[in-house]
């Protein structure tokens, strides 16, 4: 839109309408543009971009912490020789379970940020009186947190893969070892990101106050997994009750990793429950989808 030359900024001091009103005859991109914008804006928001310095501390600190195990893993791989490489605790197989606590903290810090403010300050009224539909809002926010978490998790795993490629004797052997890992990494990371984000967002959508929401999310992830682990390991649970293991978020993550990469994982709950890891993986997918549905229903009904 062209600005007429006589729109002088300084002349507007304290008075209203000393300049004519301009209509807008340009393109109107409608609902899809609104969704895309809300998604990218929320994604940036998750990393504190456009929010000032303090908001960037938590997401970038957690991103750095998720990076650390990968760097250590690559270091052992490169410097430790064959024996060390065999005992390497940080391989793509185990990466997600190694950083599970950081995933939980990332969601704890960012899910309330994404949803709470719009509810607390009734900004939803302004969103829902525009081209955007209520479902679009839920989808954009869910997509943003899932993407943010996936980005945070993909970068270290990419470093792990590159480590495998370049630590090998020749490039061909390295690629041969690394390429089969790409698909399990992508699939398990996306499901894990969706599962953790979904649970966090659903809790945040029902608790507008940031501190309370964060408390509830961290309790869900840490306390629930602790309690379930104690029950499963100490409880000698009979058949229907051993499925309580499926309530442990970290067990779902471990089952997911075992299913995608094959082999064993470190989570005691999964091992001791005796349930097939694929059941845990399926459960993680179900929770990811169900939490999106709950989020959409919540925003369809929320008063705004």
């Amino acid at each position: 839109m062209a600005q007429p030359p006589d729109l002088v900024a300084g002349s507007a001091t304290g008075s209203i309408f000393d300049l004519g009103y301009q209509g807008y005859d340009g393109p109107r991109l409608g609902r899809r543009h609104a969704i895309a914008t809300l998604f990218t804006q929320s994604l940036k928001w998750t990393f504190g971009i456009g929010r000032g310095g303090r908001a960037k501390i938590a997401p970038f600190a957690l991103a750095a912490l998720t990076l650390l195990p990968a760097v250590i893993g690559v270091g052992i791989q490169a410097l430790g020789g064959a024996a060390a490489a065999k005992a390497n605790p940080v391989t793509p197989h185990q990466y997600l379970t190694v950083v599970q606590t950081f995933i939980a903290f990332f969601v704890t810090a960012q899910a309330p940020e994404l949803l709470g403010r719009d509810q607390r300050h009734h900004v939803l009224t302004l969103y829902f009186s525009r081209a955007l539909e209520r479902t679009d809002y839920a989808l954009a926010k869910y997509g943003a947190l899932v993407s943010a978490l996936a980005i945070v998790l993909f970068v270290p795993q990419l470093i792990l893969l590159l480590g495998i490629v370049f630590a090998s004797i020749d490039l061909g052997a390295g690629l041969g070892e690394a390429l089969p890992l790409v698909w399990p990494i992508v699939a398990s990371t996306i499901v894990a990101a969706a599962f953790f984000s979904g649970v966090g967002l659903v809790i945040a959508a029902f608790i507008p106050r940031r501190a309370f929401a964060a408390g509830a999310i961290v309790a869900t992830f840490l306390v629930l997994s602790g309690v379930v682990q104690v029950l499963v390991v100490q409880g000698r649970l009979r058949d229907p009750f051993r499925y309580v293991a499926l309530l442990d978020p970290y067990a779902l993550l471990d089952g997911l990793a075992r299913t995608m990469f094959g082999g064993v994982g470190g989570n005691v709950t999964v091992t001791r429950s005796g349930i097939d890891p694929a059941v845990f993986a399926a459960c993680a997918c179900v929770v990811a989808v169900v939490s999106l549905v709950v989020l959409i229903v919540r925003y369809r009904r929320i008063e705004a």
Partner: protein
Amino acid sequence: MRPAEQGRARPGDRATGPAAAPRHRYTARVPLIATESLTKRYPGPAGGVLALDALTVEIEPGIVGLVGANGAGKSTFLRILLGLLAPTSGRASVLDLDTTTQGSRIRERVGYMPEHDVLPPDLTATDLVAHLAEMSGLPRTAARERTADVLRHVGLFEERYRPIGGYSTGMRQRVKLAQALVHDPRLLLLDEPTNGLDPSGRDEMLDLIRRTGTEFGIAVLVCSHLLGEIERVCDHVVAIDGGRLLRSAPLASFTGRTGTLIVEVDEGADDLAADLVAAGFQATVDGPRRVLVVVQDERPYDAIRDATATRGLALIRIEAARHRVEDLFRDDRDGEGADGTAA
């Protein structure tokens, strides 16, 4: 209903640029808003609350005031028009689009200024309004440009890079108006736009609304429980009470002359009334100093002049009595007779 010419953009009104040409963006024949037996019942104990009761009304472009007491159903009406709330029964259309099935398309071309505080304190006015412009479908650069424009129009230019948390109530109201205007809507829905403003802020907001309706060529529906405000800015009034339509008519018919003269004299009102009745006019004494005279033509004026001159009365003023918008509600509530002042 009002003649279509009123409230239109007038040529030469605007000071600047190529956009100074009048904008005729709505046609006269299609009602801007039309409802048919619109009913909204909020669920609750004892049958719930009936917010709108078979409201049927047509509203044409211009500056229209929607007036009613608190709880009359104004906000519910607006929210149904935006497609944010589904009516219990009946139907409503805005810009010829059905509110229940085409809500998204309506909201794309309608600006809404809610009654309550809806602004996040941590964002600047520029960031918020530009973001919301994009939420209305404007491309990014256009959203930024229009944000700067609109914030200047509402008188927030210097402060636009400061977080809203530090704004006064008046400034917040302006941000709310700006976000409703930023996508250049065809219709503006304003819910109690002067809420919480001091007298000068109120004047400025009303002036802003007036000019939005006349110079910008945007149709405006203003909700208020303050009749004085409606009288100042609107050219058509829709009055609702208890969710029902009381009356929908041009403002002039609410405030026009009643056909009665108020004659105020220093003393001797009884004598003056007696003289006028004797001369064949309908005159009644209204208090110790006032006489009400029914007028059909010019003759009573001469009679009043002659009578006061003959009796040597001090004539203070002669004034045509006018209807007031309040009368509407007073008439309606006569039955309840709280103060016994039957009109």
